[in-house]
């Protein structure tokens, strides 16, 4: 098609959300009074006007095929009122004004294989990234990890038996688009990139790649008479940051790409200030299709948290109260030299007091 015949885009940007909102929500926008949590997966919000809206929340596979999406909309038309939203963790929420629709809606969702729950102090769906299905740098398949883990955590999704809510995230490279979580399961490479020197000059903008390295381990070099790049393997922290701008610097490795588990990331300002997650376990095999080793550790952490934390403590609150030594004891995870931070600001993470628990 010639340029003149191309259709000009309409730069409408972000669409107006009100057109897709349930009329009760539109009418009571900003005028909500309180909410109740009658059962896992169900919320009842009451407005100052006296109006109420009921929400039924369900977990899905996130990578939706047309059949699944149409099943979800069909349920929304038949049992709901045609209005839905998605949460950050790709759960679907059906909003209805008529309380009598809640039970049939739950029944229809469960009969179709969706899982109702994920509210309040449950373990909600793992938030996840692209992985082997369609990212160009992944070390693992986040969708598979999530499916395998949710199979085992499903009862904690359906029930609210945790001290507070648990947000788990996964990321299939160390860039971590999965973000912070109470528990995070992330790829952790353990060997420097393997460089295909024949391709570097053609594919990579060398100065940009050199600049990308967080520890300045990359330098330009001539290899076999061709301009290429060289990695100081003693300096390299195996982060994989050079791989996206320079695919011939292959960081993924069937054996040496591992998983690491981090805990205590908390977005909320409730009680303490927001916190970043901390490393607790590494060297976990990247073991498709079901990653049993990673799931086992996650379950162990959840069990210790469930049994030992007080109501309303998120994982970071709990660990702050009991201290890290006790955390490692309760979860039976080894504490190693790799847990001691040496990145910028690391001294702030060292104990400069006699506050010691016995």
């Amino acid at each position, binding site marked *: 098609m010639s340029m003149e015949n191309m259709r000009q*885009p309409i*730069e*409408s*940007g*972000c669409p*107006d*959300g009100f057109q*897709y*909102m349930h009329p009760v929500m539109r009418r009571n*926008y900003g005028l*909500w009074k309180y*909410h109740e949590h009658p059962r896992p997966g169900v919320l009842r919000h009451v407005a100052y006007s006296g109006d109420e809206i009921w929400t039924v929340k369900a*977990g899905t596979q996130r*990578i*939706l*095929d*047309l*059949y*699944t*999406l149409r099943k*979800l*909309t069909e349920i*929304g038309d038949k049992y*709901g009122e045609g*209005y*839905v*939203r*998605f*949460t950050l963790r*790709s759960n679907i929420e059906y909003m209805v004004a008529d309380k009598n629709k809640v039970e049939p809606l739950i029944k229809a969702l469960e009969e179709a294989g969706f899982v109702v729950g994920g509210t309040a102090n449950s373990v909600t769906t793992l938030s996840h*990234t*692209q992985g*082997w299905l*369609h990212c*160009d740098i992944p*070390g693992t398949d986040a969708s598979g990890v999530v*499916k*395998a883990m949710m*199979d*085992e955590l*499903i009862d904690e999704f359906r029930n609210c038996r945790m001290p507070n809510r648990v947000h788990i995230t996964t990321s299939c490279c160390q*860039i*971590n688009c999965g*973000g*912070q979580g109470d528990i995070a399961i992330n790829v952790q490479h353990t060997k420097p990139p393997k460089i295909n020197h024949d391709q570097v000059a053609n594919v990579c903008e060398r100065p*940009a790649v050199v*600049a990308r390295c*967080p520890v300045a381990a990359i330098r330009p070099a001539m290899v076999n008479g061709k301009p290429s790049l060289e990695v100081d393997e003693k300096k390299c922290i195996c*982060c994989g*940051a050079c791989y996206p701008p320079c695919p011939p610097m292959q960081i*993924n490795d*069937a054996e040496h790409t591992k998983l690491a588990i981090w805990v205590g990331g908390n*977005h909320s*300002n*409730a*009680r303490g200030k927001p916190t970043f997650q901390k490393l607790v376990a590494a060297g976990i095999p*990247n073991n498709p*299709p079901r990653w049993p080793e990673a799931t086992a550790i996650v379950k162990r952490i959840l069990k210790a948290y469930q049994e030992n934390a007080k109501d*309303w403590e998120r994982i970071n609150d709990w660990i702050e109260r009991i201290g890290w030594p006790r955390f490692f004891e309760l979860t039976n995870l080894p504490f190693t030299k790799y847990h001691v931070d040496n990145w910028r*600001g690391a001294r702030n993470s060292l104990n400069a007091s006699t506050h010691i628990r016995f």
Partner: protein
Amino acid sequence: MAKDIHETPMLDELENGPWPSFISGIKRLRDQHPDERINKMANDLLGQLEHSYETRKGYWKGGTVSVFGYGGGIIPRFSEVADAFPESKEFHTLRVQPPAGNFYTTDMLNQLADSWEKWGSGLITFHGQTGNIMFIGTTTENTQHFFDEINDYGWDLGGAGPCVRTGMSCVGSARCEMSCANEQTIHRTLLNRFTDDVHRPALPYKFKFKISGCPNDCVNAIERSDFAIIGTWRDNMKIDQDAVKEFIAKKGREYVIENVTSRCPTNCMTLNDDDTLTVDDHNCVRCMHCLNVMPKALHPGDDKGVTILIGGKRTLKIGDLMGTVIVPFMKLETQEDYDRLVELAENTIDFWAENGLEHERCGEMIERIGLVNFLEGIGVDVDPHMVSHPRQCSYIRTDGWDEEAEKWYQRKMEEKQQAAG
């Protein structure tokens, strides 16, 4: 086509277990869909994915694909193993901006599904971690057709590359009693002011806006966005003492002491002998804990506004950073208020576009040049709310002290005069 189906023994294991299986979904597209194009694409996609599972490697590479008139918004994907899996050799993803709060009617979802059925693989995600609707898998040519079709009924691409990215907002005022902000208006005002910067990547790196209606920060704005807008209030919190009594009658005094008052981070709550609650509002840091535990009894005050934090991001390259308070409080009611918000965002992006290094996030630039230089660059005065504590090292030149002190007194006086009307 039955005999051409790739064996997927590893993926098949992800069909076991009670959680909904994405593999079963892709197989439905392979086996049940009437359109052969979709069957074949799903089959080869599964074949390539199985190959990844077996070898523990990914086989997609990037490239350049965009729609006419835009520079970004598409994630190009070309298969490196296209010989074995030709039908999914081009498998691009379109990032499409959702409305703030991710609301949809089922009719609209069906309409989007119909368009995607025509032009794409049939796989969709609500939503990616940045917040886009992700239409996963189509060819270069169909990328344009699909975009043209949905763009005609109101949908536009999000950001990809070094540009302003799609924003994200919590459900907020639409359904949540905690919200102190109008997420819908804030979100659209900001994002749609920067439409050009969304579609034509020309910034040092990505720039994200995220909006949470209250300090519970359900969208992780502080940790994950360059520009976080968080609802808050500055008058007294509202206490419904009857509801407090009701709560105590149900749960007991000890529960309230153990789970509410003693968890207050600034110890500013008192449970009185007559089963009422008192809050020292000057010391309440609006952490939301007590409101979360007693949503019927405790509510945000009426003098609502937002706190703005700038510079949050994830690991690459210098490590994770949280946003820093730049505006402790501002009202967002009038058009002038919104103009000020937009101006702050413009100043921030302009200053960063000029001073940020290539591939340097705004927060990293602030770390490199220091907060004070950034503040001077965007024309914002220093404020003690921006720090956890003042400087602790004496290695600093202070020969401009008197002048700076004078500015502070001047500002305080002006604030007082303004408050007096």
